[in-house]
């Protein structure tokens, strides 16, 4: 009779093992998808911001005829963003654009007619919105990477990750210049 009990216990242990294995496998896959999705999100927001720029330029150039340099900086930064290839180039171009836009909005303070323009106000709101979304997308990406790395670097995730050949992922390094710009600009 004892061997029947042994068989039952063995079956239960094997079943448990399979359940836990499947559980961790799925968990790791889900986390990775979250990270990849997060990365795509950032890209979407960056593109959206680039798209808003021409509209902004059209609205502004009638009013700010004498601010050629300020306007040119924005256009230059936008081109850099469109042609950036590596993630690092992307981040650098993004920084440049943020700085150029900041200057443009600061200078716009001197043009009350421009500030009263509905189109301008609307674009300013949209740009603030997009920049916040970019910042939060990056934050969410890093959060997802942190959770993933924690899972695969501690027990028992460590064991499963090795079996699946998964390595830790890198977080986005936001360069110092970006930190000088407050994340929430209102």
């Amino acid at each position, binding site marked *: 009779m004892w061997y029947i009990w042994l068989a039952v216990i063995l079956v239960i242990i094997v079943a448990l093992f399979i359940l836990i294995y499947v559980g961790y496998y799925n968990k790791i896959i889900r986390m990775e998808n*979250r990270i990849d999705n*997060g990365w795509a*999100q950032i890209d979407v927001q960056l593109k959206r911001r680039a798209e808003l720029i021409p509209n902004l330029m059209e609205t502004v150039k009638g009013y700010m005829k004498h601010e050629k340099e300020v306007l040119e900086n924005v256009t230059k930064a936008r081109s850099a963003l469109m042609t950036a290839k590596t993630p690092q180039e992307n981040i650098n171009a993004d920084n440049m654009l943020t700085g150029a836009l900041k200057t443009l909005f600061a200078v716009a303070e001197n043009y009350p007619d421009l500030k009263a323009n509905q189109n301008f*106000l609307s674009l300013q*709101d949209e740009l*603030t*919105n997009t920049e*916040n*979304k970019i910042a*939060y*997308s990056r*934050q*969410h990406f890093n*959060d*997802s990477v942190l959770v993933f790395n924690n899972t695969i670097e501690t027990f028992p995730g460590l064991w499963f990750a090795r079996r699946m050949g998964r390595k830790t992922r890198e977080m986005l390094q936001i360069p110092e210049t970006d930190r000088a710009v407050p*994340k*929430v600009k*209102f």
Partner: protein
Amino acid sequence: MEKKLLVEDHIRRNKRNTIIVCGLMALLFVGVIFAVGYFLFAGNIFISLAFALPIAIGYVAITYSISVPTVLKAAKARPANPNNRDEKLLIHRVEEMSIAAGMPMPKVYVQDSEYINAFATGKKPENSVICATTGAIRKLNQEELEGVIAHEMSHIKNHDILIATVTIAVVGAISLIAEIMFYSMLWGGAGRGGRRGEGNAIIMVLAIVLIILAPLFARLTYLAISRRREYLADSSGAYLTRNPNGLAMALEKIKQDHPKTKPKGSKTVAPLYISNPFKQVNASGLWSTHPPIDERIKRLRTM
């Protein structure tokens, strides 16, 4: 890095406390079932479970399924209008917080009221609603509004609406069962449980006491759970924005802003709001759904 760890500690502690309190609630429920079994079914646990469980589950299921439209109707909320700048900015803040939380974006509603307040509701994250008052979007600056929205988003993310609804329903179920017990004892006589002799008199007394006090304890437990979840939403929200001061400043404004007269409406929607519209802000102690506002501000400032 330092700051973030502290907020995470808050989150961990609040989650642990919730589990403890929920455990107490579960024990209470088991106690009530036991008492029921003792009286109605001469100590047979299985029959009393078969009796109590359908009541409890049915109650919870029904309350849960009608929760969203009920709450929105009670608040007379309307969808936010993107053509109104203040409401458009509210929509922007909700969009940004959904990205930070990695959640699908909730619908945005507005409630016409001069007082600063906001609430979240919904059966699951894919299907949820965040509502702010017109007073809130007018009186709070964007940083403060962001803090408030992050708090509400955290309620959705932490499944607080589900927890609140289920807990309230369990409280209701416990009260209902206790009432049934009470009346059946009144009419059926207490002799049914005395089959096993005098030594059971003590148990009988205990069971009676439990039946009378259970609804009271259930309510107290639910309120404790509600307070824990509010602290958790505060810390989770601060983690989302990486800026606890935003919400702290909003709470300061809410503190100054509280209504002098009681608004109309059912009190059960109170816990979904960021600040209980039915009470004084610093009312504390066992009978509040929300922790005292000064304590909330203090915790946020020291994160």
